C-alpha cells in the first residue's frame, strides 16, 4: 500500500538580501495512515519550513526548488492553487503554534469554523452551524453553542487552540500537521490538548505530523520520530529505538540536555557546546561536527543517511562504522 504522504528530496530556498539560503535540504520521509510522526529540532532547523512547503504556504521569498510531495500519490507541488484549495483544509489540514494570530479577529469563532465546512462539504448554513457546534463539543469546549458567537480575543489560549483544532477537524482530514500546538500554553492545558489530539487520532484514524521541541511530548505521542538539524534529517527511527538507542550524537545530546521532574539533585545536565550554525549551506561535511564530541576526519566529507536497522537511519558515519564493527552491518 502506498504511503499517505511521501516527501522526496524536498528542498526549500529562501531568497534574502545577500543571496539565497537553503532552509530545507533534500528532506525525504513518509507518513502512513493513522500514524503520528514527530519532527524534532531546534528553531531554525527547518522543521516548520518543511511543513509549510508541504502545505504550499511558504509565502513570499520562499520557494521549493527540488523534490516532490506525494499526498495519496498526487504531487501537491505540481498542483495549481485552486486544486490545492480542494485538498487543503479538507483532507490535509494544519494547526499552528499561536492560535490568536491564526484566527481572524474580526469574525466570530462560529463563522470561521462554518466557512471551511461550507466550502468543502457543500452544506447549508444551518447544517454547517450544527456541524460546527458538534465539532466544538468534540474538542471539549464547554458551552459550544455560546462560544460560536464569541470573538477569538475573548477566549483563553487553550480555548483558542481548541477552536483551531475544531476547524482543522471540520472535514475529516486524513493528515493533520500540528506545528508546536502547545508551546504557547500552560502545562496543564498542554496536557489536555495533547490528550485530545491523541483521542481524535484514534477515533478518526487520522495521521499526524507533530512538530515540537519538547522531548516529553515526543515520547508521549510519536510512533516514529524524525530529528532535524540545520536543514537536514539527521536521524529517523521508531520512537522506542530512538530513545533506547539514539545513533546520531545530536539526538543523544538532545535527549541528555532535558531536565525532568524526576531528576534528583545530583544530576548534571549535559549541555551541547556552541550553537546551531547560521549559514549551513556552506558546510560541506557533517553540519553538527563543530559541536560534536566524536568528531573524526571523515566527518568533514558529506554525510548521507546510513541505514542501521529497519526504519532506523542516521546521518553519522562514525556511528555507522561503530555499529558495523559490532556486527550489525547489513
Amino acid at each position: 500500500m502506498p504511503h499517505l504522504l511521501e516527501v522526496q528530496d524536498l528542498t526549500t530556498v529562501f531568497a534574502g538580501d545577500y543571496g539565497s539560503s537553503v532552509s530545507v535540504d533534500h528532506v525525504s520521509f513518509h507518513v502512513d495512515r493513522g500514524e503520528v510522526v514527530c519532527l524534532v529540532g531546534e528553531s531554525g532547523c527547518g522543521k516548520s519550513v518543511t511543513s509549510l512547503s508541504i502545505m504550499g504556504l511558504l509565502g513570499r521569498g520562499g520557494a521549493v526548488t527540488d523534490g516532490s510531495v506525494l499526498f495519496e500519490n498526487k504531487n501537491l507541488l505540481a498542483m495549481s492553487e485552486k486544486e490545492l484549495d480542494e485538498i487543503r483544509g479538507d483532507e490535509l489540514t494544519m494547526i499552528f503554534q499561536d492560535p490568536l494570530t491564526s484566527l481572524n479577529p474580526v469574525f466570530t469563532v462560529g463563522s470561521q469554523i462554518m466557512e471551511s465546512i461550507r466550502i468543502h462539504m457543500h452544506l447549508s448554513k444551518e447544517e454547517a452551524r450544527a456541524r460546527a457546534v458538534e465539532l466544538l463539543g468534540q474538542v471539549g469546549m464547554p458551552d459550544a453553542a455560546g462560544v460560536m458567537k464569541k470573538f477569538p480575543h475573548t477566549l483563553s489560549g487553550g480555548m483558542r487552540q481548541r477552536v483551531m483544532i475544531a476547524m482543522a477537524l471540520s472535514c475529516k482530514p486524513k493528515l493533520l500537521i500540528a506545528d508546536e500546538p502547545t508551546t504557547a500554553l500552560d502545562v496543564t492545558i498542554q496536557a489536555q490538548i495533547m490528550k485530545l489530539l491523541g483521542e481524535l487520532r484514534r477515533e478518526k484514524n487520522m495521521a499526524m505530523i507533530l512538530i515540537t521541541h519538547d522531548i516529553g511530548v515526543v515520547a508521549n505521542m510519536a510512533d516514529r520520530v524524525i530529528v532535524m538539524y540545520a536543514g537536514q534529517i539527521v536521524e529517523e527511527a521508531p520512537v522506542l529505538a530512538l530513545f533506547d538507542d539514539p545513533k546520531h550524537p545530536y539526538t543523544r545530546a538532545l535527549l541528555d540536555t532535558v531536565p525532568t521532574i524526576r531528576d534528583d539533585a545530583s544530576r548534571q545536565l549535559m549541555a551541547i557546546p556552541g550553537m546551531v550554525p547560521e549559514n549551513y549551506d556552506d558546510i560541506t561535511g557533517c553540519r553538527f561536527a563543530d559541536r560534536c564530541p566524536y568528531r573524526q576526519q571523515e566527518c568533514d566529507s558529506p554525510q548521507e543517511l546510513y541505514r542501521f536497522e529497519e526504519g532506523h537511519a542516521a546521518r553519522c558515519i562514525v556511528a555507522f562504522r561503530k555499529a558495523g564493527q559490532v556486527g550489525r552491518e547489513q
Partner: protein
Amino acid sequence: MYRGVSESGTGRKGTVIVEKENIPLIRVEDLKKYYSVKGGIITHTTGYVKAVDGVSFSVMRGQTLGLVGESGCGKSTIGRQLVGLETPTEGKIYYDGADLSLLQKDRKQMREVRTKLQMIFQDPYSSLNPRKHIYEILAQPMLYHKIARKDTVEKEILRLLDMVGLPRTVLGRYPHEFSGGQRQRIGIARALSLNPEFIVCDEPVSALDVSIQAQILNLLKELQKELGLTLLFVGHGLGAVNYVSDQIAVMYLGKIVEYGDAGEIFNHPVHPYTQALLEAVPIPDPREKGRERSLLQGEIGSSTCPPEGCRFHPRCPYATKQCRQEVPEMQEIGQTVGKDLVKTVGSNVVQAAALDSSKAGERTRTVQKSTHLAACPVTGFHGARQEA
C-alpha cells in the same frame, strides 16, 4: 537545619515558611499586589486584579527558591516586587533583615540596596537597549553606582564576559547581532555587574532552544556556587526549576499552595494542584506512553474574582464543602496533619481518601528534617497516608 512554624511561631497568619538561626536574605511577609480595573461611563475603579494575595516566604543565603505555577498566578509579579520594579499594595519585604519600604525613603541607601537586588528577564532581546553596544550596556550601571571607575571599567567588563562565557571580542557589537542564548548571557552579565547578592531569574530559559537552555542553567548554577548568590527562579518549565532549585513554592491564583524542598515537592506532592501540575508534565520516556494520567479539567480561574474558599476548589477532584467556604491555611505536612484532619474535616476526608478511621495510625509520616507545607487539609492527609 530548619525549624518549623510551630516552634518559631513568627508568622502573622501562621504562614511564615522558613526560620533559621541566622536571618534569611530575603523574607516576604503577607505580600499583596492588587491592580485596579477601570471601567464604567465615568472612569472609576470597578474591581481589582489580585495578582498576589497574601504570600509569605523566605530565601536563605546561597539557596535557590523555585517559584512555579501557571501563567497569571502572580509568580512574575512577586519577582518584580522583590527587586523594586513594583511596589507592594500591602505586606513587607525584608532584605537582610531590613524593611525595603523604609529603605525606599532614604534615596542614598536605596541606591545601594538596588545594586544588591538584580533581575534576569525572560526575553533578553526586549530587555537590552538596541541602540547601545555591549560595552555601554555593561559599563553604564557600574559607573553610575560607582562600582568601577572610568579607567577600571573595561577590566571589569572583560572579567564579566569571561564569567558568562562570551568572547572578549563582542564589546562593540549590538544586541541584535547575538543569538538568543548569547543575549541571555549578556543579560546575566549585566545582572552580575553590580555584585548583587540576590537575583530574580524570571523564566530565563523559556525563550531559548533546548540545547541552549542546558548551557544557561549550568551557567547559573556555576555562578551561584562561585559567587554565593541567592536566587529566586521563576519558571513554568518544571524540569528546569527542579534542576536549579533547593526549595520550591507552588502558586495558584496569587497564593502559595505548597512549599518544600525540591525533592519533597517533586517526589511527594501533597496539594492536589501540585499533583496535577506534575502529572501534566510529559515524561520523556516512550514506555510511559500508555500510562493513564488524571488530568485537570478546566482552566485557571480569574484573579479579578477568585473563587471563594480554596481557590483551587472548582478544579479539585477532592473538594469538600469546607473547601468551598474556608480559605485553607498553610500547614506542615507530617504527623500533625493527620490528627488535625480528623478533627477539622472528619467524614469528608475519609470519603475523599477512601479510608476508614481505623487506619488512622497509618496516616502519620515520620517528621521530616525540613519544612514541607501545603494549603490543603484534604490531601495533606491523603498524601501523608500514601507515604505511610
